[in-house]
């Protein structure tokens, strides 16, 4: 991979991030003539209080002054203080990031692995009952709201069968060493992770299936068969490695959706991550916290798109010259 290609991609990602930062500024200050009046509609505020709030949110002075101050603060990752907890937004976000990283990471991994496996089986046995069953399953999971799936799993597995806790990240009454602590957290994470995995594996299965079906028409597979290779070898060594490329990019593109899905699913299971934090920030509404979350979510998605672009170029030499 040439240094020029990498530099271009990194610069592109940084431009996109800069867009987000500028957009965020305009969204909250220019679209709304008076965000303070709008956010606190229905509450009686004195002129003094309003002035104080404007100052607190950096809404005083000319637009240009505001913009300069805003950019300076954003570069230092300073998004102001949360309105509800009065903690710096960034430390609030940092303290809630790990549960989401764990949940989204594990769900992304599992949904990609199982989705790819289902897609391979469905394509290779095209038209078989397995193919129809997996297509039906993926269609069904695609059409439900992800949090509704979470509600169904919560009712059946946690409320009725009592196999898993209904929410939270750990049992406060639990005692014991660090191993039992980790097991307890895994026990709590099972249902939210299952929800996100099932909700998003369908797309991987569909893309993997159609990519493999395209590959199966290629001449080199006929050649491989003509050489007398076993079916499994033809599939695993010749067909799948070529068909799996589009799925690699899909993982990164989907990352944004899984992150979004996590907002509602974390709420269902009161999993104390960034999703639940977003939900709580909305109830306020906690403007600085929402802004910070928006930038952090966007930055994460932009970063993973960049990784996907670079990975794709590394895996597929044809892209590098383009």
């Amino acid at each position: 991979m040439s240094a020029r290609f990498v530099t271009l991609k990194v610069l592109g990602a940084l431009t996109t991030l800069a867009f987000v930062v500028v957009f965020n500024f305009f969204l909250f200050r220019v679209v709304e003539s008076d965000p303070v009046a709008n956010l606190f509609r229905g509450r009686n505020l004195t002129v003094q209080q309003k002035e104080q709030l404007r100052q607190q949110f950096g809404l005083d002075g000319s637009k240009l002054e505001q913009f300069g101050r805003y950019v300076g603060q954003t570069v230092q990752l300073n998004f102001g203080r949360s309105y509800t907890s009065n903690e710096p937004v960034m430390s609030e976000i940092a303290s809630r990031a790990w549960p989401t990283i764990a949940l989204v990471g594990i769900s992304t991994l599992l949904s990609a692995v199982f989705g790819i496996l289902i897609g391979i089986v469905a394509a290779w046995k095209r038209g078989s009952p397995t193919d129809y069953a997996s297509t039906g399953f993926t269609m069904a999971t695609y059409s439900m709201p992800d949090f509704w799936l979470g509600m169904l799993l919560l009712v059946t597995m946690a409320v009725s069968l009592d196999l898993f806790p209904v929410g939270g990240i750990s049992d406060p009454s639990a005692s014991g060493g660090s191993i039992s602590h980790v097991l307890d957290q895994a026990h709590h994470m099972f249902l939210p992770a299952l929800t996100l995995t099932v909700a998003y594996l369908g797309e991987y299965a569909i893309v993997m299936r159609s990519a493999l079906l395209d590959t199966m028409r290629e001449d080199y597979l006929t050649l491989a068969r003509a050489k007398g290779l076993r079916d499994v070898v033809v599939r695993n060594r010749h067909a799948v490695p070529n068909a799996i490329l589009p799925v690699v990019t899909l993982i990164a593109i989907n990352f944004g959706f899984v992150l979004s899905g996590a907002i509602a699913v974390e709420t269902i299971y009161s999993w104390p991550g960034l999703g639940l934090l977003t939900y709580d920030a909305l109830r306020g509404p906690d403007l600085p916290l929402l802004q910070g979350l928006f930038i952090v979510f966007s930055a994460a998605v932009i970063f993973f798109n960049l990784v996907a672009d670079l990975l794709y170029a590394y895996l597929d030499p044809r892209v590098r010259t383009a």
Partner: protein
Amino acid sequence: MSTLETGVSGRRIAWERRRRALSQSWSEYRHSTPGMIGLVALVLIVAMALAAPLLAAESELRAVNAIDNPTWATPGEFPPLGTDNLGRSVWAQFVWGARISLLVGLAATLIAIVIGSTVGIVSGFFGRWFGAVLMRITEWFLVIPFLPLAIVLAAVLGPSVWNIILVIGVTSWPSTARVIRAQVLSVKERLYVERSRSLGASNRHLMSQHVFPNVSPLILANLTLTVPVAILSETTLSFLGLGDPTRASWGKMLDEAFSAGALSRNAWWYYLPPGLGIMVVVLAFVLIGQALEEILDPRLKEGRS
């Protein structure tokens, strides 16, 4: 005089051809079983939404009018679908909620398709820097995570049905724009467009008479694929409390069922109907969209055998 006549009849021939193509597509569509299942399901749901005033009185939606009803009544005790924590009829909420969910899904899709098609056609037609800039903006919207963006937009604009429509509309157009642009890029290189241009046709004429008719089937297919996304988005935004607080929608029903503790008392008549309704509508649109895609994309037809 004669040139004028040929001009008019040429247009008539074109329309005649389009009408024939349409009726042929329809007869092909009728042979697609999944497509017909989707269409029938959709017609039934739309009929239910339109007939809402006949199926349940709107006054049943207000808690004030439900004081005499039992709370958390099962469907057996309070047919057809029981009541919620305030004694309101779940059936009334379901029927009236269908209206809002469909309205938001369709109206938001309309906005997204208009923006997406315009950006796609314009950026594909005018290559060079203008198209490049438009594409850069499109890619930016593609990368931004949809839900966080919709959440901040909805939070700033305030909760109302029209704001939700606007928010979903202005955040769901980029994929349409990309697909349309790709098609426009290939159409504008075709010989008859070249011919028309060399005869002195204006850009406006080329876009409206040649490019648009060629991409319009693709726009239709994209429309059916955008509606399910828009309806699912409405559900999520309403669930997060960003929907219109004064009107029932399927997403709001799920939000209220969850907040009222329908899960822990297993009041299935409250949380199952809205979810199933969403599933049926989304599936219907997906089936219709796939059937249309198969008819419009000859490559898929070959592979079907």
